[in-house]
């Protein structure tokens, strides 16, 4: 009788596998939880990927997007937002998905090329036409009476890049004197009249509400504001030193396994590295990684002297603990 059980089981399994019912096109949906200024990038990219995936796999894929301050978005995912992929502003926020949420493996960064950062950006200044306050570099931003718009580093990834770029400049200017760097960045935040939660909010404050003399902005966000509202209204100022921002991407393992979307979610991120994906990134003013696309868009991006998060900050974990954790340097500066 046991052999009858085994034979019958094997027969049913064989029938199921040998005659794999009708494989029909499926409808798949993905949720990309991203940071604030990537709306336009992923709007274009999602449409391109949907076409690509339908041609490749025959499935109709719909990608929904959620945007907000990077830190806030990471917390939402940890709190249960079913993100198939997270495309955040900085690696520390994805680390939180691994450390606090156990949603991705600790070595998530090794899964895709360039430490899972398919594109880069940096921090520049957006000023009003004619640069009425003559802002040319970081020293001008900290002058008394200059109104600076930047979001809150506690909630925004872009704000943390802004802060660190200013810190790196001050360190270099003052022969790595941390106290002077703190004083410098403290002066900068004294000039900030309002802290938005995300980079897009700050752009709204500066561009639409007409507040401030200078917006510390993602390069892509500055280009976009200039494109949308016209070069007759805003100018981009490139500081003498800035920081290489490497926004990372990852599939959220717990979610894709639950929703059975791992294959399409992985393909979605891999598509960012293709020529087409890189072209879309470059068109949306993100600096591409692929050499052919880098060359094509060479003139679009100014050459800037860039520091990285590893030097002089010792990586994101250290930078976060020192500057942005509760009671860290930012809290000390901003409470003053």
């Amino acid at each position, binding site marked *: *009788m*046991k052999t009858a*059980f*085994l034979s*019958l*089981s094997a027969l*049913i*399994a064989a029938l*199921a*596998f040998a005659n*794999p*019912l009708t*494989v029909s096109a499926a409808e798949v949906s993905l949720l990309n939880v991203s940071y604030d200024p990537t709306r336009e990038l992923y709007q274009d990219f999602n449409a391109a990927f949907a076409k690509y995936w339908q041609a490749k796999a025959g499935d109709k894929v719909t990608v929904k997007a959620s945007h907000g301050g990077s830190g806030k978005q990471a917390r939402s995912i940890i*709190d*249960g937002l079913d993100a198939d992929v997270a495309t955040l502003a900085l690696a520390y926020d994805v680390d939180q998905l691994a450390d606090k949420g*156990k949603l991705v493996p600790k070595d998530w960064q090794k899964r895709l090329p360039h430490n899972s950062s398919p594109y880069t950006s940096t921090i520049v200044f957006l000023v009003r036409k004619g640069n009425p306050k003559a802002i040319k570099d970081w020293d001008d931003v900290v002058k008394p009476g200059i*109104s600076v718009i930047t979001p809150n580093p506690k909630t925004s990834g872009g704000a943390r890049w802004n802060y660190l770029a200013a810190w790196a400049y001050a360190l270099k200017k003052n022969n790595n004197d941390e106290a002077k760097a703190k004083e410098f960045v403290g002066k900068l935040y004294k000039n900030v*009249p*309002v802290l*938005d*939660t995300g980079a897009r*909010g700050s752009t709204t*404050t500066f561009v639409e*509400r*007409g*507040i*401030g003399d200078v917006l510390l902005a993602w390069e892509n966000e500055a280009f976009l504001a200039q494109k949308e509202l016209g070069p007759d209204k805003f100018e981009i100022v490139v500081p003498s030193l800035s920081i290489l921002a490497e926004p990372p991407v990852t599939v959220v*393992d717990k979610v*894709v*396994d639950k929703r*059975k*979307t*791992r*294959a*399409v979610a992985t393909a979605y991120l891999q598509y960012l590295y293709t020529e087409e994906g890189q072209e879309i990134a470059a068109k949306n003013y993100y600096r591409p990684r692929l050499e052919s696309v880098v060359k094509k868009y060479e003139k679009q991006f100014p050459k800037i002297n860039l520091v990285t998060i590893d030097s002089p900050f010792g990586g994101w974990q250290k930078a976060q603990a020192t500057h942005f954790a509760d009671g860290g340097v930012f809290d000390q500066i901003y409470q003053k």
Partner: protein
Amino acid sequence: MYLKRKKITQLLIASGVLLGSNFAFANDNDELEKLRTLVQELDQKVRVLDRKSELAAEEAVAKKKETPVLVASDKGFALESADKKFQFKLSGLLQADQRTFLDDDTTTGVAGGNLNDEYLLRRVRPTFSGTLFGIYDFRFTPDFAPNTPNVQDAFINARFTPWFKVQAGKFKVPGSLERLQSGGDIRFVERSYVANAILPNRDTGVQLHGDVLNGKLTYAAGIFDGQADGGSSGTSGSNNGDSNKDKEYALRVFAEPFKGSDTIFDGLGLGIAGTTGDFSKTAGSLANTNYRSAGQQTIFQYAADVLGDGQQTRISPQFYYYYGPFGVIGEYAKSSLDAKRGSNEATLDNDAWQIAATYVLTGENNSFKSIAPKRDFDLEKGGWGAWEIAARYSELNLDSRAFTGAAGVRFANAASTTKSAESWALGLNWYLNKNVKIQTTYEQTKFESALVNVRDRADEKALFTRFQVAF
């Protein structure tokens, strides 16, 4: 507020212009410039105040999202903190059955004939469950359907990591695949012999469990009081007190190697479960061990003075496979028990197996859990819910050594003469929505007598109908 500030700003600008003209007229360009700057500064201040008030309003909306919420959904009713780390849920399962036995055999000398048709409450189980600190789950499920209500589940489960969880209390022993399927999700009105007659049901104990390899492999290893074949702790009495003094160890490993692969093998799961324990110190007899037919008729019991006399070991390979609307589940279980009755000692090997296939006619995805209809039953809108057909074959085979010897010597009690049962079942399940199901199963069983002078038990032809609400 915004308009008011705007007006003030315009007035300031206007006054600035007027004043400026006067001063310009007086050729006082410095004063004019000062006023312009002042107006610009005031304008910026007004704009900042407006923006701050705008951000405060946005923050208030966001904070509203952080307040505890009362949730009423198809998953039950819950009160939960905004971060979902603290939850209290009320859910329930109610099954009202009709059991009809067709074609009763009333031949003299044939057991199992002339059975009573009945309406009955099969499960009446409210469940109170919840989570504390996002880690510690609890669950309490009484059952009011039996004549004496009992506690079905009462346990705490600490989810330290996905691969390391600790559960303690009374809960399902990690054994039968079909048993681990919720009573509200089973595809036939009654489970097969594997779950009902051989492998243990619920027991009191503690287990480590979790999943590894991104959920592709789950494990559970536990220590329990120990149950005889098909037994459940507290079914007919206290949930406390161990009838066999030693503990029973249970282990189950289940793999879904292609999980998340988007291939046809995605829904394949294979596993093995087993229990072992020393039953030689059994305090009471094994007479309460009840092997039942699909119609819940007792078909075999040990004699009142049969005792455990050594190890009881059970093993059960099992699998399921789901692809689109198709699903199949199969499991085998063998139990070996060292038993004695007076000087009669033997290792009794009983086994059972089942294989069941289901197909959702309305195209919904099949799964180990319940079916979620694409369109709920709604006469006005024209939805018909989900319809599923099911077929199963199962067997129970009892060791012929249980029937060796005279009535006062053999392990089987005097009324138990059936050594095997072969059942086939057909089912039709109608999922009106996620919570309401009407289920019909016809199950026919052929019995074989172990004794040459005793006729086979009458074929059991049972028609079950169930109305179920699960939320």
